[in-house]
């Protein structure tokens, strides 16, 4: 029997390095997410012939600071019908799962005994899916524990959406995993030394991006939020910092999905120039993918619920399965 394609992760670091890396990830997250919020609003504005926020600070650069101060200054509100503990824990769960996933994104290889990633786990992408599902638990709990029908409907939609798109997402990545022959993120990046997986796996990349939009609850798949009919979905009853947490988590997940896509299809940290430029290339690729996310949001209207379901089950899933089958045959034959 052939062993499971788990990467040989013999490389271990000192625990103090791990602690420093965790702190750096947290700092990086809280630095990059506010920037993303203002970048998104500016870009959406430009897509609509507007300037976007430009009042706070030079060119609106301090807008996120104003937003955070406003949210932090609000009352910690809870509806009477809510379940107190779950209501409080849900936003934390969403943020937690987002940040933990950043740990596996490789921003470079091991240099001077320090890997440029949080941790190189042998199960790689399974870790990403596990924590992605936990974040949906957060949404579900938020919707259910709020004690409001809009929140509940939003949470139900989130659950249905997760089931529909998680499968296609996994299958889309499976092609790249089969070519690389490993689940480890660094191994997958090394397998793209010759050619990025976006070339042989273009279908997988497209499916992953569409499913990623659904996974992050962003337009056109923002049905769990659907401001037009559900007020704000599972976030309806939240306010202040807890609402801010959901907002943070949304951008965090966008970052994570872009990071996974960059690692699996765009060659991760690979790029021209000396090796110390590796993190720069990775961040550039992630930002380019985030631009695509924002671009799509500015373009495509929200799907109807049945359209969402039929796209997931009738289009993406067969395509992803076909992609996996063809890739598997080619991997064996070639």
């Amino acid at each position: 029997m052939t062993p499971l394609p788990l990467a040989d992760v013999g490389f271990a670091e000192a625990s103090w390095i791990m602690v420093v890396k965790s702190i750096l990830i947290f700092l990086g997250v809280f630095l990059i997410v506010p920037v993303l919020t203002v970048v998104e609003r500016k870009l959406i504005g430009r897509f609509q012939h507007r300037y976007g926020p430009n009042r706070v600070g030079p060119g609106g650069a301090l807008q996120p600071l104003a937003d955070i101060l406003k949210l932090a200054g609000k009352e910690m509100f809870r509806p009477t019908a809510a379940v107190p503990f779950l209501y409080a824990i849900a936003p934390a769960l969403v943020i937690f799962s987002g940040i933990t996933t950043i740990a596996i994104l490789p921003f470079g290889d091991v240099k001077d005994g320090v890997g440029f990633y949080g941790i190189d786990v042998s199960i790689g992408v399974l870790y990403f899916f596990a924590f992605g599902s936990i974040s949906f638990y957060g949404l579900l709990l938020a919707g259910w524990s709020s004690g409001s029908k809009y929140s509940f409907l939003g949470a139900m939609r989130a659950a249905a959406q997760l089931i529909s798109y998680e499968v296609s997402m996994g299958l889309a990545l499976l092609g790249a995993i089969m070519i690389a022959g490993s689940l480890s993120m660094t191994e997958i990046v090394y397998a793209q030394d010759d050619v990025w997986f976006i070339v042989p796996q273009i279908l997988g990349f497209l499916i992953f991006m569409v499913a990623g939009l659904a996974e992050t609850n962003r337009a056109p798949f923002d049905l769990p939020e659907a401001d037009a009919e559900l007020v704000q979905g599972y976030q309806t009853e939240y306010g202040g910092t807890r609402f801010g947490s959901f907002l943070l988590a949304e951008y965090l997940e966008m970052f994570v999905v872009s990071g996974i896509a960059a690692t699996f299809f765009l060659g991760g940290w690979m790029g021209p120039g000396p090796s110390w430029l590796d993190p720069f290339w990775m961040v550039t690729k992630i930002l380019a993918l985030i631009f695509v996310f924002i671009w799509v949001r500015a373009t495509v209207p929200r799907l109807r619920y049945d359209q969402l379901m039929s796209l997931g089950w009738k289009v993406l899933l067969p395509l992803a399965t076909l992609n996996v089958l063809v890739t598997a045959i080619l991997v064996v034959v070639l």
Partner: protein
Amino acid sequence: MSEEFPYLSKADEEIVAVQRGPEPGGAAGAYRSFGETLRGLKTTFARLVEGPVTIQYPEEKTPVYPRFRGRHKLHRFEDTGLEKCVGCSLCAAACPADCIRVVAAENDPADRVSAGERYAAVYEINLSRCIFCGYCEVACPFDAITMGHEYELADYNRGDLIFTKEMLLAESIERAPLRREGE
């Protein structure tokens, strides 16, 4: 059409059928919607390249047309400096919002205020009631009152919006840019 819809009467056949798009679904539908999505992405990206068209209002202002009806102005004769208004109250009579109050008084020949026999001792316009219709301007036989270009009239008290004769006569600072020919 009768074969298609046998239940329709002759009059109903006049109804024009609604134009519908192709049926959704299927592989062709997915392919088509993918193409249309790409077309949409192209459209929005072109907007990004074009750049914003917003006018940054407090800093930049849309130029007003020459006939724009803003805040009223009272006028003097340029040579003698006498007020054009003779206190005839025709503007007050024409005003549909009833926002003009005129109290006339006899001119003192030694110290004339207006060019006519009488002058407006009190001339007030309540701008919180004014509808900027310009009828006062039309009614005035001496062109003493005209509509200016000023439109930034917000204030903290309603009382401050009652403009007296002195305020209306004063040279206002032109804050609204005038639209040039062909702009």
